[in-house]
């Protein structure tokens, strides 16, 4: 029953987002498993999987929506992107950097980037697709790890949404409204 439930996803509130890019830094560091000072002193080129954009006076981070019918998973010729355990997962090892996924993603959530700790002298550039994996790659020894960006956001503009409980809450709230309306009519 692992895939019976719908995917988790990250939601950001543009009214709260200040555009500080803290979430970008946190994401990049989390996926490089590295701290800020080390990254800066070593001159690592870290890539966040999210990207803070400014549109119409509002700012918010954009990351993978974990689509249920994910276009990227359909398009990937090597099967590097696929559904599993309530994630649109990505196996960077299988990725050949063909960029088809970046073309079909409706949110522009996927980037192609080189290895953070790239040594450089290889036959090919070895660019890999990178996208938000809800920090799945950080999970070690089956321990729950929360999303780095959610932890880092100083205004709590981003949250990890569990679709099932979100929907349940929504139904309950709407239900309460209907009940209230009904009691008014009755009274």
């Amino acid at each position: 029953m692992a895939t019976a439930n719908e995917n988790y996803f990250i939601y950001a509130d543009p009214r709260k987002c200040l555009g500080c890019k803290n979430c970008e830094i946190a994401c990049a560091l989390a996926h490089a498993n590295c701290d800020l000072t080390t990254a800066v002193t070593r001159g690592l080129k870290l890539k966040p999987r999210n990207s803070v954009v400014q549109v119409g006076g509002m700012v918010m981070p954009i990351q993978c929506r974990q689509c249920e019918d994910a276009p990227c998973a359909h398009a990937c010729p090597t099967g590097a992107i696929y559904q599993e355990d309530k994630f649109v997962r990505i196996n960077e090892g299988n990725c050949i950097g063909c960029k088809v996924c970046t073309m079909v993603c409706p949110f522009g959530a996927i980037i192609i980037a080189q290895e953070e700790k790239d040594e450089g002298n290889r036959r090919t550039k070895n660019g890999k697709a990178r996208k938000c994996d809800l920090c799945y790659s950080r999970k070690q020894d089956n321990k729950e790890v929360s999303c780095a960006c959610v932890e880092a956001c100083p205004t709590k503009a981003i949250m990890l949404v569990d679709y099932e409980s979100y929907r349940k809450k929504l139904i309950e709230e709407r239900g309460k409204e209907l009940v209230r309306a009904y009691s008014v009519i009755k009274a």
Partner: protein
Amino acid sequence: MSNWKNSVDPAVDYLLPIAKKAGIETAWDRYEAMQPQCGFGELGVCCRICWKGPCRIDPFGNGPQRGVCGADAHTIVARNLIRMIAAGAAAHSEHGRHIALTLLEVGEGHAPAYRIKDEQKLRKIAEKLNLAPAGKDIRQVAKEVALASLDDYSRQKRNVPCNWAKETLTAERVDKLAELGVMPHNIDAVITEIMGRTHVGCDADAVNLLLGGIKGALADYTGMCLSTELSDVIFGTPKPVITQANLGVLKEDAVNIAVHGHNPLLSEIICDVALKMNEEAKKAGAKEGINVVGICCTGNEVMMRRGIPLATNYLSQEMAIITGALDAMVVDVQCIMPALTSVAECFHTEIITTMAENKITGATHIEFREDSAVESAKKIVEVAIEAFKKRDKRKVNIPDCKQTAITGFSAEAIMAVLSKLNANDPLKPLIDNIINGNIQGIALFAGCNNPKAIHDNSFITIAKELAKNNVLMLATGCGAGAFAKNGLMTQEATEAYAGESLKAVLTALGKAAGLNGPLPLVLHMGSCVDNSRAVNVAVAIANKLGVDLDKLPLVASAPEFMSEKAVAIGTWAVTLGIPTHIGIVPQIMGSSVVVEFLTEKAKDLLGGYFIVETNPELAAAKLVAVIKERRRGLGI
């Protein structure tokens, strides 16, 4: 930024696409790449004053409301702001110290490159500073004035105010400021005091901090006042001069040298030396010899005093190199973009730094010292001629943009024009016209450019609107540059934009001054350090009317400001009682206490206050409303 226009300057319109095509990055590209800018920083609620930080306050109330030490948003915003004032005051007062020390050297008979060009002004200053100059040798007077000015940097008695602040303001204002405890006694000490009181664990009361900032702003006023006046003594007091502005002043057949920065000490000598080295330039193949042009405030200084054309102002400084025709850019201090050297890498242009404490990686450093100024200047011109030989003709793109600009309206020059109408009482014609409403009020434009606004646009838009409303306009710094480049310092602009009564007054004055037509629409009062010139005029009017500055129909506007110096200037303008418009949202919005103090409470305390308005049309309307309100207050 698809529909965003970068600039209203036609030279920028011409050169930006060329830069883009060549892949040369400019300030506008970097500004765009910087988006979105950090919201905490924009609000001023990010504290980096100690290394427990950086701390930042969540403006939505979800996250932390205090820094690690417990400082709240108000403390943090106020500390950040007054540190900017201290930096601005430091920049201006270092400039002033440099000039005062040079005057001392002249008085003592050293510094052979310099002399006293305006003896009369020196004697007047000495009188103002109560130094009884009558009958004294001029070198002795120079020494005494220099020492009295340097006293303003070193006095230890806290209850004795700075000479230059005390003697150049209205008595009422001086008393009021002393009462508030904000009259500076020593420029250096006040700057140091700000640094001290904002250290971790010191002054934490936002309003008390702001009062410290006000004192710092008055120290800034003191430093710039003495810097301007003593520069006039050494280099001459500006008189009206007709010159040209915008990048079209560069010449294809000349060795083009731009002087950029703020301090006239070296640029003046370069102008002298360049004249003498014309032949060498011609020998190198430059048919028209050497062409010196100005950028930013060094540009304003040499434009006012010598009629040297102004190439451009702050935000478009890189454009001067992109013309491909600039052989050397000689820079001193302040507002010099470190990007210049990387732009210059794409061309033959030499960027030459001249001050030991202002170097830029990639630039050629030719150190300047007062005692060997001429030798340094010679070396600089030689380097420029050498660079000219390497110029790639295919890369030359001088935009066909230049405007006439009538500049050089020092306070003395304005008085001279007025005295043509009434020799015994020069101020009378001006005051009469203010009282009868022909002139509704006076506006001083100052400050920089900022890519957050369309380059030069706010200046031009507001000025046209105020002109319609018969407001007399003065300008300094890069604001003055914007007007000069865009043709608002011409007689034609007066004809085109001035309201009927303003036009009549400017025409009467212009004819009396022998200009055969009106004065220009906006009067060029100099570089940004010269804002004290406008205060001189305002204080003279106030004294004559027997009221303090905060009663006059006087406003200031810095619609595109960016530098710490501008923060200091704006703050002293408010402190002197002048309502001051700023067109860029300042980084203080995270504290309601600070915002309220500067935009409202200051009015009760000082008479002046800040008006924040990013839309130039609305800003103009607000400024006109303030002038009308002040007129009502005076019963005129």
